[in-house]
């Protein structure tokens, strides 16, 4: 129990919270960019163009089958080796998560768009509404309602996955935790439990409100 004190010793807690800030910074930059690019990508996938569809499909499947860790190594080490492009760990991380998030988000947008029945469009047009009105008042509100719970779910997955960036040398929450544990190995051998416990709690605090909102929206809108 006395090892719990490690958490409050010196600037440890402050450092952990800074680590959380790095985690959230990478996550939110990636999520925001993925949502924007994903919407564009999703709309492109619904266009009836064979070539575009094939390209999108290949991109989507490729990004999905590759583990995010492999993508991270490719961006961080591979780009340097092959093209002499030197990205910082954090930049590579955001790049990879945007590439991945865009693919996943795009697929969600695509499925939400095509799930609106043809007759919803027809009913709108049959009432004399313009194309813009049909989209703004009928199609988009329904698409967004279907999308938001799914997008929040994806966002929590992305936050969790950022813990992989430790492996390309980015010091985020998990790494800070490991540093604290290492530094106190002899004085507080059981600190690991408390530090990881604290990290668990912080991840939980970051993700739980989001899944709560997702669940609530889903119940309200379906």
């Amino acid at each position: 129990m006395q090892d719990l004190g490690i958490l409050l010793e010196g600037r440890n807690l402050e450092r952990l919270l800074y680590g959380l800030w790095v985690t959230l910074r990478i996550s939110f930059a990636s999520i925001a960019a993925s949502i924007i690019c994903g919407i564009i990508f999703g709309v492109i996938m619904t266009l009836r163009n064979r070539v575009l569809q094939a390209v999108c499909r290949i991109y989507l499947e490729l990004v999905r089958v590759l583990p995010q860790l492999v993508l991270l190594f490719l961006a961080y080490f591979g780009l340097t080796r092959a093209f002499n492009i030197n990205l910082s760990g954090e930049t590579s991380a955001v790049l990879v998560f945007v590439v991945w998030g865009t693919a996943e988000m795009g697929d969600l947008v695509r499925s939400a768009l095509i799930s609106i029945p043809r007759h919803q469009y027809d009913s709108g047009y049959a009432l004399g509404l313009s194309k813009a009105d049909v989209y703004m008042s009928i199609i988009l509100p329904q698409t967004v309602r279907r999308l938001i719970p799914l997008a929040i779910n994806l966002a929590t997955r992305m936050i969790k996955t950022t813990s992989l960036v430790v492996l390309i040398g980015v010091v985020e929450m998990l790494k800070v935790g490991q540093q604290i544990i290492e530094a106190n190995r002899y004085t507080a051998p059981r600190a690991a439990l408390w530090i990881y416990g604290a990290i668990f709690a912080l991840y939980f605090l970051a993700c739980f409100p989001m899944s709560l909102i997702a669940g609530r929206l889903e119940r309200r809108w379906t």
Partner: protein
Amino acid sequence: MDVNLLEVEQLRKSYKDAEVLKGLSFTLARGDVLVVAGPSGCGKSTLLRCINGLEPFQSGVIRLSGRDLTAPGVKWTEVRQKVGMVFQSYELFPHMNVLDNLLLAPRKAQGLSKSEASARAASLLERVGLKDKMKSFPRELSGGQKQRVAILRALMMKPELMLFDEVTAALDPEMVREVLDLMLELATDGMTMIIVTHEMQFAQAAASRVLFMDEGEIVETSSPDVFFTFPKTDRAKQFLNIFHFEKKERRH
């Protein structure tokens, strides 16, 4: 002499190789209730969809109050405000309550003020006894209620012509009645309507004329009394027999 509300001349429509409407011509005077009957896939629904421009067609002319709808510069959004259409699958907008479903088009397309549109909606809902459902969402309504709201939604635009595309086909038998009653009431009030339906008894009661189609052609146009008792064509007789059952002797 008054011009016909609707004139259709030599309407042809095909999908790729298949011709689904093979040169249809008919006219509709104000106050007419035209029931379009015929086997599935004969082009009834396509005909309705062509009349309000949801479906492009290859040739032919459609005139509404004498105005050629195939002429360049015709705005379909304006035409559709005069031609209401109700579909089989009701298709209320699920994210809006009943009132908002009714208000959307008058507000957006006709620029009606909220109070004006709400008053119109309230009186229509009152008339069909759904005023207490004003704030309900479509998922909280029965099929029959949904379909009646869908009809009101079209009526909100004060259309000159109403198109009904098998509006009771997806409903439970008990719900069918309330929807048909509403349509019958509209007919009595003098609304001009084209009704595609398989409810033959209703057709007989509501129609001022029956148009019988098969394979993209008009086979017969008759008054309901003639059509349902002494159809002129064999094809129509054959079709009407589908709705007729005879008690057979039991074999064992």
